[in-house]
Structures are given as C-alpha cells and as structure tokens.
C-alpha cells in the first residue's frame, strides 16, 4: 500500500510536469466531506504537487492560460481516480467543493455557475440542481439566470474550441466570410459541435484585438489576419494534432 501511494504520487507529479499546470483545485476537495476510507495522504500529495507546479509556472511565465487549467483538470481527474474508486463520485465531490467554497447566498449564483463551468466545461441539469439546492433557489431561477448569459453552455463542448471574432473591425475585414468558410468546412452552424466532438464553433462579439482583424481563437491561441484558406489549413492541422 505504501509503495502504491508513493508510486501514485510520482506518477501524478510526472503528469503535471508534462502539462505544466496548476489549478485552483486546492479548494475542491473538502476534507470533512470525504469518508474515512479515502486516502487523505494521497489526495494531499496530489494537491500539494499541483499547487507547487502552479506556483512555478506562475513565476516563470507570469500567466496561466485556460488551456493549462483545462489540462490540469484532466490530469487531476486521472490522479484522483486512483484514490477515489468511482469517477462519478469524484465529479460529485469536486462539484460540492466548488459550490461550498462560495458563500451561501443567492447573489453568488453567477460566480458559482462560472466556477462550475470553468471546471466541467458545461452545466448539466444535475449540477444546476445541486446549485439550486445549495442556494435555496428553485431550479427555475437558476435556469432562467443561466440562460440569460451567453457564457454558459448546456452541452459538452467539443475537444477544440474555435471562436471567431465577429466584431465590427473583423466584420469589415471579412470576418463573415471566414465564418462562412468555417461553417461549410466543419458542416455545422455557429454554436454547434461537430458530430465527432472534435470542434465547437462559436462567435464572440469582440475579442479586443481589432488590430489583428479578422481574428480567430483556436483553443487559447489567437490567429490574426486570416484568410479562409489559411483558416481551413489551421483547422486541418488542429484536427491532425488532436487525433
């Protein structure tokens, strides 16, 4: 058992080295909520190492990208799955951790929804129900507030996020043609996910990098001054790189 634990920890550390990331996950797992048969030390170890790596990256680059955090979620899940027996239970624990970390008042609804989406990439009915229970709201109210804001999604997004800027500067420089090209290439409409769950296509009103117009964000990287043919090549490259 002892050796197993150290091995786990080592593996998890290596994981983090590959994806140099950290996470806000230190708040995710509430100790009191975990039953006795869970291995505290291993959990602590994983969290400690993730925190340490987080600090290193922060010092080195002064910046943590969303992709980094996303990757850490995956590796954290993997690492924790050794400790927790059932994957769903981890999700539940993490969800509780995220929700309980915020103060229990109805006005915290949007920050909680944001934190949950940051972690799970989307809001499922189950998560929304849990949030409504915690905040003493009806599911209606949570749903009503969440659907008002475009940030929230209710379906699991694809592996790669393609975000096209549809700001005015991008529009006058041919952003609509770019969108047309991407829609036709991927055979989906804006806001949808491809059938193979590789790409989710989205538009945003402005990314604030109008000097790069027309601009497209693929995952977390912004590509500027794009032509349709170049965008399609980028998409093909992303598809290859991902699979």
């Amino acid at each position: 058992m002892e050796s197993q634990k150290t091995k786990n920890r080592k593996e998890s550390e290596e994981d983090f080295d590959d994806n140099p990331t950290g996470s806000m996950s230190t708040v995710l797992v509430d100790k009191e909520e975990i039953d006795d048969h869970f291995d505290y030390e291993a959990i602590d170890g994983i969290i400690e190492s993730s925190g340490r790596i987080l600090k290193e990256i922060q010092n080195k680059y002064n910046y943590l990208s969303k992709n980094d955090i996303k990757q850490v979620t995956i590796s954290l899940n993997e690492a924790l799955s050794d400790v927790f027996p059932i994957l769903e239970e981890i999700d539940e624990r993490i969800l509780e951790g995220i929700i309980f970390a915020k103060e229990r008042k109805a006005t915290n609804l949007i920050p909680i929804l944001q934190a949950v989406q940051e972690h799970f990439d989307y809001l499922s009915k189950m998560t929304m129900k849990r949030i409504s229970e915690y905040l003493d709201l009806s599911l209606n109210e949570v749903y009503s507030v969440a659907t008002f804001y475009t940030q929230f999604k209710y379906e699991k997004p694809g592996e790669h996020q393609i975000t096209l800027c549809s700001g005015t500067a991008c529009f006058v420089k041919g952003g609509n043609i770019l969108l047309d090209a991407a829609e036709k290439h991927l055979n989906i409409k804006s806001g949808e996910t491809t059938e193979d769950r590789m790409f989710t296509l989205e538009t945003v009103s402005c990314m604030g990098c109008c000097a790069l117009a027309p601009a497209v964000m693929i995952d977390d990287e912004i590509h500027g001054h794009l032509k349709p043919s170049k965008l399609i090549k980028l998409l093909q490259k992303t598809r290859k790189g991902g699979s």
Partner: protein
Amino acid sequence: MPTIKIDGIDFDSPPGWTVLEVARFLGLDIPTLCHYDGLEPWGACRLCLVEVFDANGSKLVSSCTHPVSEGLDIKTATKRVIKTRNMVLELLISECPSSKVLQDMASKLGLNRVRIAPKWKDCILCGLCVRVCEEQMMAGAIQFGNRGQHLEVSPPFDIKSDLCRQCGACMQICPVITLRCDGADAATVLCNGCYNETQPSCADEFDSYDCWMGLKGECGTCYQVIETKKEE
C-alpha cells in the same frame, strides 16, 4: 404631496403613485398591456407611453413605472405619443395577430394597417404569466429563458416544473389565449375591427347613437343587421 400637471390638470398626487395611477384616478385613458393591478410594474410593453416635458425638451416614458415627482409635466396623448404607441401596437400585432386583446386595442386606437410581415406566434412575451405565478401564486413555476430573439417563457429544460400546482392563473391572465373572432377572412392580420370607429356605424343610419348598451357604434352589429336586411 407632489404637485404634478397631467394633460393640463394640476393635481396633488399622493406620494409614491405612478403616473398611470394618477391618470386612471382622473379618468384619463392610457392603454396598457403588461400592467396588471396587483403585480409589480414591469414596463415592457411600452403601450402606456406618455410624454414628459422638462427644461431640456421632452421624452417618452412608460407611465406604469414612472413615479410622480414635484413639478412633473405630463401629456398623455400628444401626437408623438400616439404615433409611437400605434407603431408599438403594430409591432405587437405583427407578432401575434390571433390575440383578441391586441385586436380590440387596435380597433380602439384606430390602427388600420400593419406593414410588418405577420409572424403568427403564440406568445408576445409580456411577462404577465411569469409575474402572476411568482408574485401572486408564490410558485415561480415558469420563468423567462434565454434572451433577445430567443427569449421564451418556459420551465427549465422544457420539463414541467414540480412547483406548478396547475392553478391556471397563467392561463387566466394571458392576453393571447383569448382568440380573436376569425370573421370572414382568417388570413388578414387585422380583424374586421368591431371596435373600429372609422367604419360605417349605426350613426350613419339613425343620425345619432341610440344604443341600449350605451355604445357609440363600436360593435357594428346594428349596421351589419341593417346591411343584411337591405340585401335581402
């Protein structure tokens, strides 16, 4: 007590009243749709617009939400108000021509054309059902979802909510649920306008309104009866 001037009438209004309340108190007619006594003012339908005059000119405000304040100068039926109000009603009818409430209002206000392509929707999103469910029935079983063009009234995930007690208040209050009479030609956007005072009415036949119901030719029934008798 704030003194206000409404359509030229000086009035000492009790504090906390809205312009609409003052107007109704004085018997001035302001059409409303999303306003309902007993529900919080919502100010969304924009049919209750009135013109407020101040030093910088004038602007249109919704009377159901505008609180009275000292020296307020209001006119309820200026040309600008009527023109804008009719256009708003035109927009509403183009959304949902099958509503009796809207059609009656159109006849009353003398709206005689709709230039916008009709959508034949079932809901005008006035919010009355949502508000009555939450404020009077204390259930909150239906809510607004999404926004903008995709705004809808629905329970979450389109599944009937546990909170619904099937009291029927939403149906009772809905202005669209009462269908207009289809008349001869169901496809027209505006119905024949039984309310419409511009159409030939009984006064043409009898020189004056002599109605046992106290109407002034709005119903048009007598006229139609006379016409059919003539034809026979």
